[in-house]
C-alpha cells in the first residue's frame, strides 16, 4: 500500500544542515517536506531535563549498568549519561557493523545532533581549501574560500556565534557576537604564550554558537551560563534546529515536518536522469510511502546520506546513486583527538569565577603554516579551559572527618587542560559500505565501517601532545602532564566524507554546488560532502554550504535546469 504526495522540495534529515535547508528553501517560497527518521522533540516543551539539578537524577547523572548494556557503543565514552539518556539512537533497532572499531554517535530525532553538538564554530581557510591540491592528496576542493565566505557571513549572523576578531589568515574572522569571556587564569596563560612564541602561537576565545546578546526576532535569550546545553536550552541560547532554523521555516507556512519517516531510497527517473522523489518507511507503522519533489536535499548526517545514495537507483548502478564516481562511501574522516596536556597554575588563589560557561579557550593551528614542514601534513588546534578544582579532587592525605569536609567545601588549586583536534586525511581505503547480511528493525541493510587512523595522524599525535606540554611549560604552568587518552575513529563525532565534492564526475559524488553528478536535482550538503576535514569543528561549514547550495538550487529551478 502506498500513497503519493508532491512538494517543491524534500529535505531528508532535520539536524544542523537539514534545518538550514528547510529554512532557506521555505523562505524562498518553496513548499517543503522535511523528513526526520525519529521522534519529534518540540522546542522547550520537550526538553524534559533542562531544569534538573544533579540531585534530581537518581544516579546523579551517571549511566546505569542497564543503560550500558543497552548502549554497547555509547558506553565507550562520556556520551552515555543519565542527563541525555534517550537522546541517542537505539543501538538495538539500528545496528551497524564494525569491521574495525568505529564509535558512531547518532541523534535520531527532530533536531538531530544540533541538540547535542559542541557548538564550536570556525571557518575553514583558503589554506584548507587548497591543501589537497597543493599536497596531491585525494582530489581538489571544487570551491575556494571566496566562494563560501559570504555564506559564512550569512549563517553566522543568523545563528549567532560568539567570538573575537583575531586577523589570522588560517582561521578567518567572522561575524561575531561578544565572546564568552576567558577567566583570569586563561587570560594570564594566553598572554604568556603570546609572549613566549612571539605571537606565532595564540590562545584565543573559543568561537561558539551560544548567543551572548539576545535575538528577540528569533525568540532567543542570551546565554544564562548554566552549561546545560545538551539538555536542550529553554532560553534558546545555543543554535539548534529547534531554537533557530525550524521556527523560521515554520513561520513561512511552507513547511511540512514529518517525523518517524525513514527514507529508504531516492526514486530515480533514468530517462530524465533526475530524482523524482523519495521512498519513505513510516517508522511506527512500517507502511511505505512515496513523496515526489523537484529537488531533494540529503541532510541525513554524513553516513546516512551516503547510505540513502547506496540504496538508490541500484538497478542502474549496483553501488547506488553516485557510485559511478568510484568514491561513494570512501574517504571517511573524523577529527582525531583525546591527546593533550594539563597542569597546575600557581597564584590567583584570591580569584574564582561566577557562572558556568558553555565554552573555554581555543588555540588555532600553528603547525605546517608558512614554510614549516613537519613529518606529517596539515595540523591541529586545541580546546580547553582553566578552572579551580572542586570536591572531586585527590585528597587522599586529608583522610576522613571534619577536616576533609571543610577542605572540600572550598575550591582547590587552579588547573588548566587542553586537548588537540587534529585533521584526518581523506583516504580511499577508509570507507563504509552496505552489509546486506545485517538488517535493522525495518529490514533495511546496515552500514559497515572500515576506518582507521594512518601514519599521518599517528605522526601528528606526537606533536599534539608535546606541543601542548611545551606551551604550558613556556607559560609557567606547573606539574605539566601530557597524555594520549586513545582515539578510535568516530569518537570526535565529526563524521565527514563518503560523498565528497569535486570537479570531476569520475572521482567525485557532488559538484561544487553539492549537486550529485548523476542526478543534479539531488544535493548533499551535510558532512558527507567534505573533500577534506581541516582541523576545525565542521558544523558551521555545513551551514554555509547548505545555504549556498539552496541559493543555487532555487536559481537553477527557476531556469528550468533541474527538471
Amino acid at each position, binding site marked *: 500500500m502506498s500513497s503519493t504526495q508532491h512538494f517543491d522540495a524534500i529535505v531528508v534529515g532535520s539536524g544542523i544542515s537539514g534545518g538550514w535547508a528547510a529554512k532557506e528553501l521555505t523562505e524562498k517560497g518553496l513548499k517543503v517536506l522535511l523528513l526526520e527518521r525519529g521522534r519529534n522533540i518540540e522546542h522547550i516543551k520537550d526538553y524534559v531535563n533542562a531544569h534538573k539539578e544533579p540531585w534530581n537524577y537518581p544516579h546523579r547523572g551517571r549511566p546505569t549498568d542497564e543503560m550500558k548494556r543497552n548502549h554497547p557503543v555509547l558506553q565507550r565514552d562520556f556520551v552515555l549519561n543519565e542527563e541525555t539518556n534517550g537522546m541517542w539512537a537505539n543501538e538495538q533497532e539500528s545496528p551497524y557493523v564494525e569491521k574495525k572499531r568505529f564509535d558512531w554517535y547518532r541523534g535520531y530525532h527532530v533536531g538531530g545532533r544540533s541538540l547535542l553538538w559542541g557548538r564550536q564554530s570556525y571557518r575553514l581557510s583558503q589554506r584548507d581549501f587548497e591543501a589537497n591540491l597543493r599536497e596531491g592528496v585525494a582530489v581538489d576542493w571544487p570551491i575556494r574560500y571566496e566562494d563560501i565566505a559570504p555564506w559564512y557571513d550569512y549563517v553566522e549572523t543568523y545563528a549567532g556565534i560568539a567570538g573575537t576578531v583575531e586577523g589570522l589568515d588560517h582561521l578567518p574572522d567572522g561575524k561575531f557576537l561578544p565572546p564568552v569571556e576567558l577567566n583570569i587564569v*586563561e587570560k594570564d596563560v594566553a598572554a604568556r604564550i603570546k609572549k613566549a612564541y612571539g605571537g606565532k602561537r595564540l590562545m584565543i576565545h573559543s568561537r561558539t554558537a551560544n548567543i551572548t546578546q539576545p535575538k528577540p526576532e528569533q525568540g532567543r535569550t542570551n546565554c544564562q551560563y548554566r552549561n546545560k546545553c545538551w539538555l536542550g536550552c529553554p532560553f534558546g541560547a545555543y543554535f539548534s534546529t529547534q531554537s533557530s532554523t525550524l521556527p523560521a521555516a515554520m513561520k513561512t507556512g511552507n513547511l511540512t515536518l514529518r517525523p518517524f519517516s525513514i527514507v529508504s531510497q531516492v526514486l530515480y527517473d533514468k530517462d530524465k536522469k533526475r530524482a523524482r522523489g523519495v521512498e519513505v518507511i513510516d517508522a511506527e507503522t512500517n507502511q511505505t510511502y512515496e513523496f515526489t519533489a523537484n529537488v531533494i536535499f540529503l541532510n541525513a548526517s554524513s553516513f546516512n546520506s551516503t547510505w540513502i545514495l547506496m540504496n538508490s537507483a541500484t538497478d542502474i548502478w549496483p553501488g547506488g546513486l553516485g557510485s559511478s564516481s568510484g568514491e561513494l562511501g570512501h574517504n571517511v574522516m573524523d577529527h582525531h583527538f583525546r591527546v593533550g596536556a594539563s597542569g597546575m597554575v600557581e597564584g590567583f588563589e584570591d580569584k574564582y569565577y561566577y557562572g558556568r560557561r558553555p565554552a573555554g579557550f581555543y588555540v588555532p593551528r600553528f603547525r605546517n603554516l608558512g614554510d614549516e614542514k613537519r613529518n606529517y601534513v596539515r595540523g591541529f588546534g586545541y*580546546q580547553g579551559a582553566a578552572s579551580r578544582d572542586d570536591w572531586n579532587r585527590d585528597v*587522599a592525605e586529608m583522610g576522613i*572527618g571534619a577536616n576533609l569536609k571543610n577542605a572540600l567545601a572550598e575550591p582547590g588549586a587552579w588547573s588548566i*587542560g587542553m586537548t588537540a583536534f587534529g585533521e584526518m586525511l581523506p583516504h580511499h581505503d577508509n570507507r563504509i559500505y552496505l552489509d546486506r547480511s545485517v538488517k535493522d528493525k525495518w529490514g533495511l541493510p546496515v552500514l559497515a565501517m572500515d576506518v582507521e587512523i594512518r601514519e599521518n595522524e599517528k605522526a601528528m599525535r606526537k606533536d599534539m601532545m608535546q606541543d601542548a606540554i611545551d606551551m604550558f611549560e613556556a607559560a609557567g604552568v606547573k606539574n605539566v*602532564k601530557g597524555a594520549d*587518552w586513545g582515539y578510535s575513529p568516530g569518537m570526535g563525532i565529526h563524521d565527514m566524507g563518503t560523498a565528497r565534492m569535486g570537479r570531476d564526475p569520475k572521482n567525485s559524488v557532488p559538484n561544487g554546488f553539492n549537486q550529485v553528478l548523476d542526478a543534479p536535482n539531488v544535493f548533499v550538503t551535510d558532512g558527507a560532502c567534505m573533500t577534506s576535514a581541516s582541523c576545525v569543528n565542521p558544523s558551521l561549514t555545513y551551514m554555509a554550504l547548505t545555504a549556498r547550495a539552496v541559493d543555487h538550487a532555487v536559481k537553477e529551478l527557476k531556469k528550468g535546469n533541474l527538471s
Partner: protein
Amino acid sequence: MNRRELLKMIAAATGTAMIGGTALSGTALLSGCASRPQTALVFSDQDILLLDEVAETILPRTETPGAKDAKVGEFMRVFVTDCYTPEEQVIFHKGLVSLEENCQKNYNRSFMALQPNEREAFIGQLDKYAIAQSSTGNTHYFTMVKQLTLFGFFTSEIGATQVLRHVSIPGYFDGELPYKPGDRAWATRW
C-alpha cells in the same frame, strides 16, 4: 564545559577513576553483556543504617550538614545496585561483611556500637589501608564507600547548596570573582 576532553582531564587529575557509572573505569569490567549475579545482591535496612554511619564518619555534621543529613546511605544502595557491575557489587557487599568482622575483631562490638572517636580511628585506619591497596591496583571496597560518600554528598541538594554553593541560573559570567579563604566552592566545577 561539557566537552569530553575536560572530563578526561578530571579523571587524569584525580588519580583513581570513579568506579561504576562511567566508561572510564576500565573496559575489562564493562565489556559486553556482563553475566547477571546468580542471586540478586540486596541491601538490608541495617546495611543502609551502617552505610549512613560510615559515611557520617567520613563527612560528619559540623556547623553544616553531614552525610547522614543528605541520606548518603540510601544513595549508595541505589547507585551500587544500578550502576555497579555484578563483580563490583560483590566487592561492595563482601566489604560490608568484612567491615563488621574487622570491627568485632578489634573492638568486640559492631560498628554501630562504637563511640565517635572509635569510629573515626577505625575508619581512618581503613582509609589508609584502602589507599595503599588502590596504589597496587586492587579495588578495595572502602575506596568505593568513600567515593560514593563524597559523590553522593556533594551532588545532593543539601551538600551542593548548604555545604557548597549552587546558583541554578547564573545569568552571566565573571572570570575574576574575588575569593577569600572560607568562601565556599561551587557545586559544579564549570
